[in-house]
């Protein structure tokens, strides 16, 4: 609150004590430390520096006022709405096809055509159980229209095994039999020479172990000459046969009477020596038997009238 009258209306030096007229000259007429000297109240040059001031607008506290406007009219019109669309070109999308699980589906199929080709099977090594095979070989018939046909002979060699007789056993080998049959020959125009049949037999060896006795039987063979059937006229050569009779020495009938051989077994005799213990506890006494030449004796009669008495023990 400012003071307009009385004490304090001026600052110190502005007016005389109790006066309300301000001094225009002298001390106090100027402000302290002015540019003019003491008592100098002339014009003075004053260099002013910029003055700045800062202003700030304070806040206005407007109390709530209820305004009730009247006679207002508002006209509204609906404009167009624009929605801005911004395309982001940096966006990228990756699409992948997922799996498809197909449940049982009944489909009406039309006819299908399949072309199949049979491959070539490769069979590895296999064991095949085969039933018995019978093989029958027979010599065919040779037909010789214009040439000389020579049928080679059939040859077989038979060897009798070795009989080994051991211990008390006797081994009897049965004979070996072979039958040869010469085939037939039909000869229309030519000479045919049928070769003979040959056979070679050997008797085996016998090995006798210990005292075994083995008897070998002989080998017998029967041969017969085949027949020749001639159906057409053939220019056959002559058949020659040479036979020579050996020399026979006239031998009268001889009867040989063999007698058996006998051997005689003899059993020797053995001497038996059986002793009993000699009782050394008795006072046995003996005397030497005289070996002189004066001993005499007489034969003991062997008749039935002999009598004797036991010798006292």
């Amino acid at each position, binding site marked *: 609150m400012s003071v307009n009258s009385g004490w304090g209306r001026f600052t110190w030096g502005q007016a005389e004590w109790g006066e309300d007229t301000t001094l225009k000259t002298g001390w106090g007429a100027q402000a302290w430390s002015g540019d003019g000297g003491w008592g100098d109240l002339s014009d003075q040059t004053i260099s002013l520096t910029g003055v700045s001031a800062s202003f700030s607008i304070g806040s206005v506290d407007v109390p709530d006022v209820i305004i009730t406007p009247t006679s207002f009219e508002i006209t509204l019109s609906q404009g167009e709405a624009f929605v801005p669309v911004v395309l982001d070109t940096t966006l990228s999308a990756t699409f992948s096809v997922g799996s498809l699980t197909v449940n049982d589906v009944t489909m009406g199929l039309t006819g299908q055509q399949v072309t199949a080709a049979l491959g070539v099977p490769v069979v590895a090594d296999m064991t095949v159980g085969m039933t018995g095979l019978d093989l029958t070989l027979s010599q065919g018939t040779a037909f010789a229209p214009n040439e000389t046909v020579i049928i080679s002979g059939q040859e077989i060699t038979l060897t009798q095994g070795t009989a080994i007789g*051991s*211990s*008390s056993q006797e081994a009897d080998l049965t004979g070996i039999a072979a039958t040869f049959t010469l085939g037939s020959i039909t000869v229309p125009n030519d000479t045919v020479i049928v070769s003979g049949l040959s056979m070679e037999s050997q008797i085996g060896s016998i090995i006798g172990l*210990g*005292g*075994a*006795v083995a008897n070998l039987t002989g080998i017998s063979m029967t041969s017969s000459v085949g027949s020749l059937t001639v159906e057409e006229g053939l220019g056959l050569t002559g058949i020659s046969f040479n036979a020579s009779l050996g020399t026979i020495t006239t031998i009268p009938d001889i009867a040989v009477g063999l007698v058996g051989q006998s*051997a*005689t*077994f*003899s*059993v*020797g*005799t*053995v*001497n*038996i*020596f*059986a*002793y*009993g*213990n000699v009782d050394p506890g008795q006072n046995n006494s003996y005397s030497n038997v005289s070996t002189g030449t004066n001993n005499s004796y007489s034969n003991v009669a062997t008749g039935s009238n002999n009598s004797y008495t036991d010798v006292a023990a």
Partner: protein
Amino acid sequence: MAITSAICSSFKQELLQGKHNFASSGGDTFKLALFDSNANLGAATTDYSTSEEVTNTSGTAYTAGGETLTRSGVGLTGTTAFTDFTDVTYSSASFTANGAMIYNTTTGTASSTTDSVAIIAFGGDKTASNGTFKIEFPANDATAAIIRLA
């Protein structure tokens, strides 16, 4: 019942069959069995049997089956072939024997055979009483050997 000295007939047949070998080396095994007076032995005997075989009255000198003989080999003098054995001795013997049988236990390389060879009669009971019972075979020659074939 009696014991008669003889070559067993079956032995003669078997000999011709080559079943007996008396060679001193590699021959068959022959045994000598003793029998009492109740035995019936002779040429018809074919096999060894324990029937009426000697038994010890004391001690163990004699064993059933008899003693194995030692072959003296086979000899030939003139027309007589012969074979023999070495003596057999039973020590500390107590038994009575009336005869003996020689039989082959390995006839024809077989084993445990009982083929009789010869029967030997002692001529009576021979008794040893805790003494020595000795069977002395004859000389091994053509005139005395225990088995001779002339």
